[in-house]
């Protein structure tokens, strides 16, 4: 839980799974817009390094808060640290997630449980704690990372897709429950995005999938982060309970 530079009146966001990929891009986007950023990663080293790099690059206060999203006690610890440091939370980006792929007959029970623990339960645990901190100010925005697999299904990734569908459902329910307290909850559903998760695809598999995208290319993590930042901002003040695709029009 290493602090860098001093807090002030600027808005505060927590980004989970922020050491790389879409989470890192989100943390960078918020920092570039002047937000103070709490950086969550599963390891102390990963969180601390990202927090230090972002503080150095953007000159904003950052805080490293390590902890596994699937561990409710670790999640509570993140919010205690944020409360101690900033006394507020304006936005949460629920990005932490792990992949669990394989055909239905080849999904190991432990891997499926772990994926649900981190992706679905972790999102729930963070919403629980974040919304309590946001309620004190009667305002806040939560953006969850679902996936096009969660909204359309995905052969060969049933367990992962189900965790992302759970996030979409959780988003709609939380929006109904937290809206009256001034807290908006939305989700983004990325399509094929250039991250480590694409590394497992063979070139011909990737080309085949790109061929189905009307915009004829994979998306970037920064393009997802642009939507996340918008949904967390006051410019999206009347958007609540939505799951919005960032997929180049992927069918």
């Amino acid at each position, binding site marked *: 839980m290493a602090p860098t530079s001093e807090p002030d009146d600027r808005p505060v966001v927590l980004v989970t799974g922020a050491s790389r990929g879409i989470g890192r891009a989100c943390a960078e986007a918020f920092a570039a817009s002047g937000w103070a950023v709490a950086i969550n990663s599963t390891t102390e080293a990963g969180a601390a390094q990202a927090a230090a790099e972002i503080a150095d690059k953007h000159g904003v206060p950052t805080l490293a808060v390590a902890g596994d999203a699937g561990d409710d006690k670790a999640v509570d610890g993140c919010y*205690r640290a944020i409360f101690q440091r900033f006394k507020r939370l304006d936005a949460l980006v629920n990005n932490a997630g792990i992949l669990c792929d394989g055909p239905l007959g080849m999904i190991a029970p432990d891997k499926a449980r772990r994926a649900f623990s981190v992706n679905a339960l972790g999102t729930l645990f963070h919403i629980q*704690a974040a919304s309590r*901190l946001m309620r004190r100010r009667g305002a806040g925005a939560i953006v969850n990372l679902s996936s096009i697999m969660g909204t359309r299904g995905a052969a060969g990734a049933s367990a992962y897709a189900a965790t992302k569908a759970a996030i979409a459902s959780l988003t709609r329910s939380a929006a109904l429950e937290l809206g009256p307290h001034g807290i908006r909850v939305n989700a983004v559903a990325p399509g094929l995005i250039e991250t480590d998760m694409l590394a497992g695809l063979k070139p011909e598999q990737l080309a085949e999938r790109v061929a189905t995208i009307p915009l004829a290319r994979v998306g970037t993590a920064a393009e997802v982060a642009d939507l996340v930042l918008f949904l967390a901002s006051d410019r999206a003040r009347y958007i609540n309970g939505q799951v919005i695709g960032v997929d180049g029009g992927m069918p």
Partner: protein
Amino acid sequence: MAGVADLETCFVESFALEPGTDPRSLRFQSILEWDSVGHMQLIAAIETAFDVMLETQEVLDMSSFDKAIEILRRHGADL
């Protein structure tokens, strides 16, 4: 940090208690107002008044006035 009177105020205001109602006599779901929604209202009031961040399990365990005192003491409240 806030005291017992502030905790009483949290209960009275969260549940719009009638004058003369003793918050110490209440239990979770013992009155209509203390349902799950009212509980979160109470938690928000207590966290604000005592300037603490409770753990999720403590939120679930806070089922009476005395239990609230016990939990808040863990967070350094002088009650």
